[in-house]
């Protein structure tokens, strides 16, 4: 009796703090409720996420380089802009490509782009730990402040913080309270805050972690002979003559896992996506 009373009291407290989504007794969220979730526009991903990124929560998309993190993020931003939402991208190291965004379908007039300072070449070519990491530290501090300002302004559909190229040692120095403060800014709102990184950084209790693994298979076009590099014909210093061996890697295979989803649901098998050129 005492245990059940304590549990009931705990559930009441969680509901009062709007953390009731973590309860096993909470009502299932409708997967098609666009007001509680921000769909990514990718049916397979939205099916894994039960509708999309949960609103008012801090989620993250993590994975190594060339695992499709940026592609997935741009797809989510594009879906948001197509829903007449205003989105923001805090680009800590100024690596955003406008052409890729346009290709992904982002309505650029609804995207607020906050560009961080690209680090000077000297601090990278001649790495001095203090100077180089000091530069990264300054960039990440500014990016976090900018994210806080954007979240305080409110009414953004999706706010993305791109820390994908930040060294792990710098990201690990971010206090956990920083992520709690960011979550508090969007708690109860319609804003989705997505972090983009290499390793898991932080997420709110009802947020999601999308882990992209670097087991991508670079599909070779059909016409490329086995054992021969793509796009190069014999005797040609430049290119080939076959018109079908064109374009970038035809398919970028992405393995996606949803970690620690709501309600204890966790995808056991990776979901394979295909990113086309």
């Amino acid at each position: 009796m005492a245990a059940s009373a304590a549990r009931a009291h705990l559930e009441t407290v969680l509901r009062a703090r709007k953390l009731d989504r973590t309860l096993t007794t909470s009502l299932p969220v409708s997967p098609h409720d666009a007001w509680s979730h921000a769909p990514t526009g990718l049916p397979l991903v939205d099916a894994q996420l039960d509708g999309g990124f949960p609103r008012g929560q801090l989620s993250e998309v993590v994975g190594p380089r060339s695992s499709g993190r940026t592609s997935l993020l741009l797809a989510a931003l594009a879906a948001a802009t197509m829903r007449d939402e205003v989105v923001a991208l805090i680009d800590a190291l100024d690596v955003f490509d406008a052409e890729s965004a346009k290709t992904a379908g982002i309505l650029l007039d609804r995207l607020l782009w906050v560009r961080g300072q690209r680090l000077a070449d000297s601090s990278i070519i001649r790495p001095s730990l203090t100077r180089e990491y000091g530069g990264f530290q300054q960039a990440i501090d500014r990016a976090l402040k900018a994210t806080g300002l954007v979240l305080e302004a409110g009414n953004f559909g999706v706010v993305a913080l791109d820390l994908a190229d930040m060294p792990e040692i710098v990201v690990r120095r971010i206090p956990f309270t920083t992520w709690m403060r960011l979550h508090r800014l969007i708690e109860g709102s319609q804003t989705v805050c997505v972090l983009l990184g290499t390793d898991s950084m932080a997420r709110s209790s009802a947020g999601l972690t999308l882990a992209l693994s670097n087991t991508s298979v670079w599909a070779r076009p059909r016409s490329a002979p086995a054992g021969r590099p793509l796009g190069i014909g014999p005797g040609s210093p430049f290119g080939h003559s076959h018109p079908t061996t064109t374009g970038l890697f035809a398919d970028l295979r992405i393995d996606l896992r949803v970690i620690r989803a709501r309600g204890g649901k966790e995808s056991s098998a990776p979901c394979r996506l295909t990113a086309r050129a």
Partner: protein
Amino acid sequence: MFACLYAPPPPITADHDPPIEPGDALMSIARDFSPRIEAHGSRLVTLDVSGLDRLLGPPRVVGEELRRTAADRRLGVHVAVSASRTTAALIAQGRAGLTIVAPGNEAQALAPLPLTLLIEGSVVSAVPPALDAAALVTTLKRWGLRTLGDFAALPAGPLSARLGAAGAVWQRVARGEDAGPLVPSMPDERFEASLDLEWPIDGLEPLSFVLGRLLDPVCARLEQRDRGAAALHVRLRLVTRETHERSLQWPAPIRDPRALRTLALLDLESHPAPAGVDRIAVAIDPTPSRVLQFSLLARARPSPERLTTLIARLSALMGENRVGGVGLLDSHRPGAFDMTAFTASVERSPNTSATRRSTAGGTISRGDATRALVDPGVVTSIARPSETPDPPAVTETDSAGLRQALRRFRRPIPARVSVEQGRPVRVATDRRGLAGGRVEICVGPWRTSGDWWRLPGTQQPLHSARAEGAAGGAHGRIDQAGAVPETDGAAWASDTTGGFGVRGSAMAAVRPSSAPAVRAERAVGRPTDFAWNRDEWDVALSDGVAYRLSCDRDLDRWFIDGIID
């Protein structure tokens, strides 16, 4: 009780000089006696003198004071005082000197005045325009009437039957009855404030306190007048007797004093005063405030005021031109973009489409079709950016609908690339975190070049097609077969928007590095901002990372342009 001042026009002189309009002088005289004044043109002013009898005396004394004041300011005026402002205005225009009309005698005072006063007098603002005064007077004269008394004596019923409701209104005017209340003319209000400091201040914190003190009452007056600030001008007088001025403008009016102070401080933080400040003045350009009705059905968006503040704060944090919207440029330069003003537009862009199509085999695609594979002996042209297809729609049959994205380095990273048989086989860099490795897969090259026809640092073309003797300009464009039409080696167009192609034999004559300035700039090994000539490769290394490489053909150096992620 109303008084009316009328400044008759001076007689026409022989030199035909235009008469001086006494508008401001009349208004000034009237404001000295009453705050409720109404101007009817530049020569007639009506003022409400109710209550002046306790200050000055009976109406005749008030009228004498008005005449004396006008005479002191060298202005000859006719003055009329009456209980009806219509009577006062008509009598002031019809009789010279000072005329006092006792209450109840308005019709009797107006009776002998001519009908033409209805045309000249502009005091009847409430008369409906259905019946023009000139047409009315013409009709009345045709009936044999000459004075206002004759018109006022007509029976109202038959008059209305003949002239309509407008005729009845005019008859009331002829009797001296007011058609409407006096509408005071409000002076142009200036929203300014200034403060002389007892000792100079230096720094933003004390400046914040003073700005708040100045902006609070100004914003309160803005709110009373239902105005917003379209622009804020901050003028700081320095101890060096110089003036440091900053002007801020916003797309939407703001009247929140805290928001104005924050925006001013953010701007002053970016553009600080070079010395101490001993006087601060602020001025606001008012504009009517907006009434916004947000939809209850649409998703909320940041308000313009909050967005303005946010962008100002972000700009102060990240730097100028680092925050805003992004737009693609009409250029063949890879990754060309421009920062634009971000307004959170809700209008759907006409160039967007919800449709997507799958990539077909054989189609040159990276979503933008701006690159073409190099065919030996033929340099293909580059498709126009305007020909970029719309992004495809996500269909149920599409497995993911994802499009590959590039993380572009603003300044490409130098790389050491080992080349075998014309293709990269190993990539290495000095960049921490980009170790490189053996090339597993490579695709390319795509040859691209452009802007070599521009002078360094300008938009001026290096040479024009006409100077080269081009016959109508030769545009090298790729045809469907992938071949470039025959062109004269020297005949080609400096077309910045179209395709550009040239036969291989003519390439030596048109190499971008032929321009001395270009060679000098590129000799230092830096990719220039105005010309490029390169081969691009997409490679996947043994570490599992895909890069976009580019080889500067002039410098014969390799760079990493970005990471495909």
